[in-house]
């Protein structure tokens, strides 16, 4: 059985991110890209100190990707005519986030970045399907699924924390939906907000995430 242990939504003004990181870990995360800071801040919000040591997989999708850093790099390479500053290049590599945040999440075993290919697109259904399967297989004790975006005027993190066991604050459980799945919430970037709303005020016993192009990836949530 897979448990929904946390639903977290975070929104920051971009210049507030360093302070958010400092609040989360007690010190700044030097030379870290915005997405890395978002990942660390959100992961710390989802997990207690003890949970951060449990074997964890991070799956994070992003529409923006390292957009601002890539534009900066393109300026340096194409307009500057030379080689970029190494840390500017590193900031365009979202895979680096995992290595930078593992010291604060000692249980982090692997991390996968899934860039999205369109505005308002999301792939929560696939992230959750992978998470449920890997938890069932015993690959890890918990999976953090996230959508992280960093734009010039806003930064946001949407998180679902799943585990093989219920945390003290567990909110529900989930499983691949039996087919045919009832109509459900569309797979959009703000799916965690809809899930939170159902948890807080919904009357139905179950809540479904619908995957338009992959109906078999539909997910059913239920309260504990």
């Amino acid at each position, binding site marked *: 059985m897979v448990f929904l242990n946390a639903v977290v939504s975070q929104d920051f003004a971009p210049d507030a991110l360093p302070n958010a990181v400092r609040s989360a870990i007690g010190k700044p995360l030097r030379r870290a890209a915005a997405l890395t800071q978002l990942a660390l801040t959100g992961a710390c919000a989802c997990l207690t100190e003890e949970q951060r040591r449990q074997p964890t997989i991070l799956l994070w999708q992003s529409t923006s990707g390292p957009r601002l850093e890539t*534009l900066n790099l393109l300026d340096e390479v194409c307009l500057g005519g030379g080689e970029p500053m190494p840390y500017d290049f590193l900031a*365009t590599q979202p895979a680096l986030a995992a290595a930078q945040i593992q010291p604060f999440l000692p249980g982090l075993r692997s991390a996968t970045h899934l860039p999205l290919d369109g505005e308002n697109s999301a792939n929560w259904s696939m992230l959750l399907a992978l998470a449920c399967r890997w938890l069932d297989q015993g690959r890890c004790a918990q999976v953090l699924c996230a959508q992280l975006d960093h734009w010039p005027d806003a930064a946001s993190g949407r998180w679902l924390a799943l585990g093989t066991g219920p945390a003290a604050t567990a909110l529900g459980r989930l499983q691949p939906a039996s087919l045919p799945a009832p109509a459900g919430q569309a797979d959009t970037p703000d799916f965690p907000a809809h899930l939170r709303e159902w948890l807080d005020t919904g009357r139905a016993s179950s809540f479904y995430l619908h995957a338009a192009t992959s109906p*078999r990836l539909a997910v059913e949530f239920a309260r504990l």
Partner: protein
Amino acid sequence: MQRPLHIVASGLLCARGDSPAAVGDALWAGECTAGERLLGERYFPYFALPLAEPDWLLRAERAVRHVGAQLGPYAPETPLFVASSSFQVGLFEQRGAPFDMPVGSASFSRQIADWLTLTGPRSSFSTACTSGFSAIDAATTLISAGLIDEAIVVGVELANASTLAGFAAMELLSRSACRPFDARRDGLVLGEAVAAVRLSAAPGPWQIAGIASGLDAYSTTGPDPDGGPIAGVMREALQAADTPPAAIDLVKLQAAGSPGSDLAEANALRQVFAEVMPPLLSLKPALGHTLGASGIAELAALIASLDAGQIPATANYGEPDADIGLAPLTVRSQAVVRRALLNLVGFGGGLASLLVERS
């Protein structure tokens, strides 16, 4: 549900040839010449695609369509998994400032789907050098669970100055050649590739028997020299396949000619295989390091070689390194390979191992 997972078709376009079989033949013949790319005032060896088309987007289209045509008939609704570390950054460079980047950072994946006439779900993976195996891992998980039946996994890494300049700025590139495990190794040689595998629950000649991923946070640019995290991932892949180390007939190394990463991988191999070291092979001296495409490109090339009953030699190896203490195959062989382990050690700490087995 737990279904076996087969590789039913593959496609490849890289510096060594325009199909998996052609690349296999070139590897068997020992071909390993590289071209070069100018960056500022420095030339770097580089393995470019054999396409003369100067327009970045047209070149990409030709490459992707060519590889897609090698996958045999597939349903248009087949799920697409795209692996890349740079996507279409070369296009932005060619079009110049002001850089017109679409909203979705992986918007290039939609273009790839169109070129492949795929209308089903798409997902993209960008975990640097391990991107290809990350995509395969997701696809195999969903197929194995019965949530999808087939998947097309495409690795794309196409020429751009940003990646070359970034690696050059960190002094990670060789100015001469990729020399895996060699005492003279001095860095990576980058290259381009478009590669694809079609994965299915239906029978095929090869199975993906096990796959594992991991993280080495020793440094953002290089692994723990002890090799412990790499060894851990190799063991997990073997365990997932329920296969002992002694049953591995060949290891396709990451071995990109990097001083630090090669040493870490060698130390990991000793931890996993001890005294019974299987034959070791690196394809990067012949293909270049094709980054996000490398996992799929090297898988397609290796399977083509093995299907032809051929294990190519590792090019450019000549001077043993006492610290490495291991040597890749320098003499080609026709030994039968039933199971092969493929390693990826990624920039940024990503690790992955995949075990393929004849069906």
